């Protein structure tokens, strides 16, 4: 272990146990236990469900969380006194100007192949290759099913669909579930969740977190700004800045929840 390794904060929803290395990236290391994921993340990534914010990545093959300590390949480090509560403890309806401004920001900042196309058909032109056109068609099919009220079928159609470590469809559905959850539409959120068939562990982590009404600190900060009706461009940009397209896909799903009344 390199010197200077420090645990800065950890999420309160993390369960004790031994977790094994799943995947590692330049800013995060993911560890799994059954179908649960815990991530060691660098400070820029944000506090979030299942996240332990650390001063540097560990390179550990397995971590054990037990009795206020985290063991990295057997070496103990005391968990920080600072913990993060991932729960969103207020209700919020996304409509009117709140919705319009967020939608405009999404269309401005989302990567070309994100699911932001659902709010502006012109973005469909980015899906130019035959394979991408077929992908777009499958995504639109899922969206149409959701719009028609066929929630579970729509979720099943989108689940596991798209590029990246967490497929776009999974990120979209996680955002959708959170949007439904924090606007009090728990039954609909549950129908979306039960429709998801993804086997991607990191997607499952996101979907489960949204189902509980959990989100990252940056997304929560964005929600606060929305609730207070304050200008929120900076917070919006922070909120979508995770993964490559994940943040934008999540936001697209979150905003789409307002279309499902």
């Amino acid at each position, binding site marked *: 272990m390199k010197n200077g390794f420090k645990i800065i904060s950890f999420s309160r929803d993390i369960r004790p146990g031994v977790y094994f290395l799943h995947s590692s990236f330049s800013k995060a290391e993911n560890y799994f236990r059954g179908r649960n994921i815990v991530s060691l993340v660098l400070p820029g990534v944000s506090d979030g469900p299942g996240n332990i914010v650390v001063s540097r990545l560990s390179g550990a093959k397995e971590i054990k969380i037990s009795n206020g300590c985290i063991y990295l390949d057997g070496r103990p480090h005391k968990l920080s006194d600072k913990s993060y509560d991932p729960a969103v403890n207020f209700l919020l309806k996304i409509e009117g100007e709140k919705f319009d401004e967020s939608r405009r920001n999404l269309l401005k900042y989302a990567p070309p192949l994100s699911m932001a196309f659902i709010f502006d058909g012109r973005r469909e032109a980015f899906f130019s290759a035959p*394979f991408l056109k077929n992908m777009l068609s499958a995504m639109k099919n899922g969206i149409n099913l959701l719009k028609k009220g066929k929630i579970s079928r729509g979720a099943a159609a989108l689940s596991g669909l798209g590029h990246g470590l967490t497929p776009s469809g999974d990120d979209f559905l996680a955002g959708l579930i959170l949007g439904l959850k924090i606007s009090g539409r728990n039954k609909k959120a549950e129908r979306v969740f039960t429709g998801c068939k993804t086997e*991607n562990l990191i997607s499952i982590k996101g979907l489960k977190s949204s189902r509980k009404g959990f989100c990252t600190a940056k997304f929560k900060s964005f929600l606060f700004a929305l609730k207070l009706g304050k200008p929120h461009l900076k917070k919006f940009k922070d909120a979508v800045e995770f993964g490559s397209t994940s943040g934008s896909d999540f936001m697209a799903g979150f905003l789409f929840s307002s279309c499902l009344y």
Partner: protein
Amino acid sequence: MPVKTIVRKGVYFDSISLMRIAEKINSISGVSDSAVIMATKENKNIISSSGLLTEEIKKASDNDLAIAVKADDEKTAASALAEAEKMLAGKKEAASSNLTAQSISQAAESYEGLNLALISVNGKYAADLAFEALEKNMNVMIFSDNVPLEKELALKKLGARKNLLVMGPDCGTCIINGAPLGFANKVNSGNVAVVGPSGTGIQEFSCLLSNLGGGISQAIGTGTRDVKDDIGAITTVQALEMLVSDAKTSVIAIISKPPQKKSMARILSAANKTGKPVVALFLGEEKELTAGNIHQAKNLYEAALKSYCLSKGESFNFVREKIYNDKISLSERIKSEKAKKNKDSKYLRGLFSGGTFASQAIRLLEPVIGGVYSNIPSSEKFKLKNSMKLEKHSIIDLGEDEFTFGRPHPMIDYSLRKKMISSEASKKEVSVMLIDIVLGYGSNMSPLADLKETLEKAVKANPALTVIAAVTGTDMDPQNRRYLIEELEKIGVMALDNNYMAAFAAGEIIRDK
């Protein structure tokens, strides 16, 4: 138009990286379409509808990266794939901890300091690979079975000459310097080494010891035939000799079926020469073997308890007290299970995935409930005519070749056992059903999800039935022993973390019926 594909297993890239690679490939002249994407079921549908699906991608899973290229000709497709590979290799964000090599020799040349090869291939190829590994000065664990006996002997003689261990063939379990290999559990590190041919026996022993608070320094599987005189216990003896100089090891346990005569003599002599305390369990051995530094145990639990005592400087009184207390703590539960029996419910059915567990259960139960029919009986008169048709008291080992031919081991694949649980539970005469659930690396990763519905239905179908599950594992295993036991109890299963106590409970419930 030709389509060429590559699947890379268990690697993860961010979406932007993959999109850029796809964009780059699509820009190559002659490429008409491509996909660079995780092979989820839904994505495979899109790949298929785009005419990019190949057999290789069909077989890929959610956690595999699929790259497909459709081009005007084979050459263009191949060069586009090579370009994609090159770009992937250059991505620092890639996460794959697995080093790869095409052969043992290549691995030895590419990665300095390799000293152990785990071989798990069709048995007819395993010996040649093992010879290659020994030539490269690697110890060998041969997971494969069906290696000819003469080849096993030649391998072991060569290994002994080079002071290298040949663990196997048919070696299911090892823990070497803390690294679990094959079917093995996540156990505490400690000062007890265990040696023997019994894979599940070593698993149960190491878990019991770890759960007691002890720990394992080395677990050395020897292969099932090592204790036969044809082989002469070469690996067992060699392992015992090596453990003499292993500073981490202060106590040694041997877990085995009774060795043949010459092998037994060689093992006892080597055990004696270690100068370290040795706990010897030769399951079914009637002769008294305790002498000098050798402490005989009669079952896996006693072996673990005695090893624990020796490793912690405790007196063997602890062994008796612990077993007594464990039995007392089960007495109320046994009483209430007995109370729900009716006149029809009188027989035991044991459905085991571990041969040592089945064998131990038979030996523990026969003095209490009488003869037990089996595919691995204690005497030929109790040999089941048809292993699928259980009669009276029956215990079967579903890990025997007759059940595993062409299908995964029952520690991984529960499908056959689930069928048998359902059919046996529906029979009124069945009073107790005894099963084992082995956790750890290599075993079924979702035992609860896989068994829950079957067990729930079994308990409902026959209210007089007692289902007892012996769980081999630790709380550190990926499947988590404690969680599994708690969840099994919730659905009415009597879940115990110990094969010995499970057999005891089964015997007490059936006794005097």
